[in-house]
């Protein structure tokens, strides 16, 4: 299977975007092909990591906004 197609499949599988038929088919392919199974495991690990990265990146953005707001309001001291 093409790397791009496989990545797309893994992503949709993880996001719960596959139909039941497609899901069954995908799981069947994994069972019968250890190489694909290995790639799925690797992709899953990677996509989980990029999702974590994205979540933390967004959180840091919000933290920065809140910190700036509270500093302006004098709730957080800027300097000693």
């Amino acid at each position, binding site marked *: 299977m093409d*790397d*791009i197609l496989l*990545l*797309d499949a893994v992503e949709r599988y993880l996001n719960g975007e596959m139909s039941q038929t497609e899901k069954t088919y995908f799981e069947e392919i994994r069972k019968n092909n250890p190489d694909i199974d290995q790639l799925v495991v690797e*992709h899953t690990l*990677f996509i989980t*990591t*990029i*999702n*974590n*990265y*994205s*979540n*933390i*990146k*967004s*959180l*840091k953005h*919000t*933290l920065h*906004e*809140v*910190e700036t*707001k*509270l500093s302006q309001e004098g*709730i*957080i*001291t*800027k*300097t*000693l």
Partner: protein
Amino acid sequence: MTENDKFLLEGLANNDKTAIEAIYKTNYTSIQSLVLNNNGDIDDAKDIFQEGIIVLYEKAISGNFDLNCALKTYLYSVCRHLWLKKLQHKQRYTEQIHFLGEIIQVDEEIELHEKKNADFTLMEKAMVKIGEPCKSLLEAYYVQKKSMQEIAATFGYTNADNAKTQKYKCLIRLKKLFFAQYKTL
């Protein structure tokens, strides 16, 4: 742990600004005192507080809203632990340590956080290495959660399918960069 604590934790898991602001308002001052009274400055206090919130966030998104103690105690314990580690690292450890708050054991959470934090740094480095337009394309999709349609319009692809193919090509490159760093650790 109060109902309000649980509510705030759920808000934090959703990156909700109001919840985060409320957590800041009720906890920041005590964390700042903790850092200032133990060889740190304001910037250290801000950094430690942010990192503490990230640990709390990681706990919350794991689906575990039960801290077994008040949110305030949990956050204080995490920040205290993080600050102690930082002091040891900077070798600014003094004999007298002034910690007044009640604490609980958070070693496991911190350990998990450090692992995730290392992955975050590796991903950030890989994102820099990959360059443009891949970096912006991937961040538009994964961080800003934009649709492929919006991305196609922003970046000037003729259609969403082409943008999607490009996204996966970038992702494959990013994956190689990411794991290459992993292996050299």
